[in-house]
């Protein structure tokens, strides 16, 4: 009996000692897990869990905990409240996530006050990173990935005319602005610009309007998911492809949405910062782990790589500064940092804390019975064009 007690005491001591020396690092993540944008939460979470499977759930013996919070729709006030709760009650070390711009903007003052390093996994409005010195973005900005497309269309593909169909909200306006500007600069002619309300469910009239002008191409920007699927289907089902009209897109033709559109989407050209079929070792590891953990249908998208690279940045920061890394140390650490992402080489802009990356021109093809995007052209490293054009705007 006495011997057993001694053993237990020793055991308890060992545990408490090892416990005392190891820190727990908490990463809070705010995104939509329910509601119309729930796909983001799922992709972020799967990516973070897959990252931990590959890179371990602890760093030098310090446990890394993930804490997820559901934004529950486009609700900036709730995002702020969740961020407060994570910072004050959960005592997180890093704040991450943010699928939608309004939620990211809503926490800007808060994270500045709390000196909370905040990694944006998606929200793509250019100005966000200027709203707090504690923001860093590992995803993309809209203008960054749209910029190369119009020039390629005119100069490489010989497309002389175009028509834009964009959703009537801020990212859609951003995309329309840069597309029209670059298309006309390259010598192309715009035949029309339509803005589609976000609540539209039947896109036939818009596609017909564009087609009636005899345009050689239609550029679309519309939230990926049900709306983009309806719009691309409408284009495909009307036989415009057979008439030689080119569809130019961005995030709408990500691999994860292709099965919902069907074979008619083959041949669609898009520009984006991540191609799911690329053969970077990081990308192969990412895809393999996703399938192992979440089944054969698990497909990475831009949310997945945004979260993966955000985790990489945080893990590397902790490795260098230890588990007690401060917000200021981390923000200093990220500036100018370069690494190999599943998408390819990327770096963090030392001035803007925003991502600088290559953009890939891709074409939808069928490989081994599966609809996928195949790269055919890669740009140089591109900085967010809006920030270049507006050096002082806040």
């Amino acid at each position, binding site marked *: 009996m006495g011997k057993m007690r001694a053993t237990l005491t020793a055991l308890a001591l060992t545990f408490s000692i090892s416990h005392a020396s190891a820190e727990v690092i908490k990463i809070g993540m705010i995104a939509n897990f329910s509601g119309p944008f729930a796909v983001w*939460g799922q992709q972020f979470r799967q990516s973070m869990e897959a990252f931990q499977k590959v890179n371990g759930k602890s760093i030098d013996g310090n446990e890394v905990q993930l804490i997820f919070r559901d934004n529950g729709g486009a609700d900036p006030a709730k995002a702020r409240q969740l961020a407060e709760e994570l910072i004050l009650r959960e005592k997180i070390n890093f704040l991450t996530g943010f699928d939608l711009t309004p939620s990211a903007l809503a926490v800007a003052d808060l994270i500045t006050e709390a000196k909370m390093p905040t990694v944006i996994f998606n929200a793509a409005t250019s100005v966000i990173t200027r709203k707090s010195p504690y923001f860093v973005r590992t995803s993309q900005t809209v203008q960054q990935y749209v910029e190369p497309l119009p020039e390629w269309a005119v100069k490489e593909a010989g497309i002389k005319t175009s028509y834009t169909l964009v959703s*009537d909200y801020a990212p859609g306006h951003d995309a329309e602005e840069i597309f029209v500007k670059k298309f006309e600069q390259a010598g192309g002619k715009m035949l029309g610009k339509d803005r589609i309300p976000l609540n539209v469910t*039947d896109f036939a009239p818009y596609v*017909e309007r564009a087609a009636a002008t005899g345009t050689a191409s239609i550029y679309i920007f519309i939230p990926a*998911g*049900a709306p983009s*699927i309806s719009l691309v289907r409408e284009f495909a*089902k009307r036989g415009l492809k057979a008439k030689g009209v080119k569809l130019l897109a961005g995030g709408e033709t990500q691999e994860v949405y292709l099965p919902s559109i069907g074979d008619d989407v083959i041949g669609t050209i898009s520009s984006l910062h991540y191609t799911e079929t690329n053969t970077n070792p990081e990308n192969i590891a990412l895809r393999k782990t996703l399938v192992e953990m979440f089944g054969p249908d698990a497909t990475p998208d831009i949310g997945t790589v945004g979260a993966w690279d955000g985790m990489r940045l945080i893990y590397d920061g902790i490795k260098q500064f230890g588990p007690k890394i401060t917000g200021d140390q981390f923000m200093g650490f990220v500036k100018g940092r370069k690494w190999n992402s599943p998408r390819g080489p990327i770096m963090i802009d030392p001035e803007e804390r925003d991502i600088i990356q290559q953009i890939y021109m891709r074409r939808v093809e069928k490989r081994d019975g599966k609809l996928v995007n195949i790269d055919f052209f890669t740009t140089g490293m591109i900085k967010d064009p809006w920030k270049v054009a507006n050096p002082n705007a806040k």
Partner: protein
Amino acid sequence: MLIFTILLDGIAYGMVLFLISVGLTVTMGLMRVVNLAHGSFAMLGGYLSSVMIRNYGVPFIWSTLAAALVCGLIGGLAELTIYRPLYRKGDLAQVLLTFGMIFVSIAAMTLLFGPTPVAESMPKWLEGQIDLGFRTYPAYRLFLIGVGTLLAIVLYFIIERSLFGARLRAAVDDPGMARALGINVNLLFTLTFIGGCALAGFGGAIGAGILPIEPFYALKYLVLFLVVVVIGGLGSFRGSLAAALAVGILDTAGKYLVPQLGSFLLWFIVFGLLLWRPNGLLPPKSAT
């Protein structure tokens, strides 16, 4: 030329709205139950049909019919267990409960099928275009127009020409008098509810090419379905057909001719139609 394109697009869109909304208008008119969860049955139909096609290789037509059947049965069960106690509880209780059911169905579908829209499962024969002489037109939309017309005719005979339909219309117009005449209104309710849910499931499955199936379907298109019901007149079968086609055609024409009006357009149409006919285009006698 232009007018034909607008008409075709508008009618095809209107037919999808009609297929899904007609069940709602009859149940709301007959039972006075504000069944906001109607869209959940349409969504369920879409999911069922897609699972049958992709996992079990069931042909498209059969899968939509089977989805309608299953939705009808589930609807019947729900009528007996969930809706019946609600009939006397008043509008607020009905709205709260059926709205809650929407969230339950959204969460359930997200859990079962994930948040992304389901994969395209249209058969090959619906994918191409058909030459109409003045232009080529997507086969799928022509198919929708055909199916919608066929179903409207069938429903016309059931509701306007059969004994069942006569009883149903009597119960809509004056439930008290219908009961006094010995009509089994309870049984009529259950049968109608089964029919309404089956139609919703069928509409969801067959209209998936225009309204993609995803967990948020039940809430996202709810307003559209309610607009059709309100413009048509509560409980009016002919009204819902007229309203669905009016909304489809006017909305399409507006988007085509004046896209600058954007999202206001649909509401201008609703506003104008309701100012003109506050009880709906073709209201049943009880409402006039």
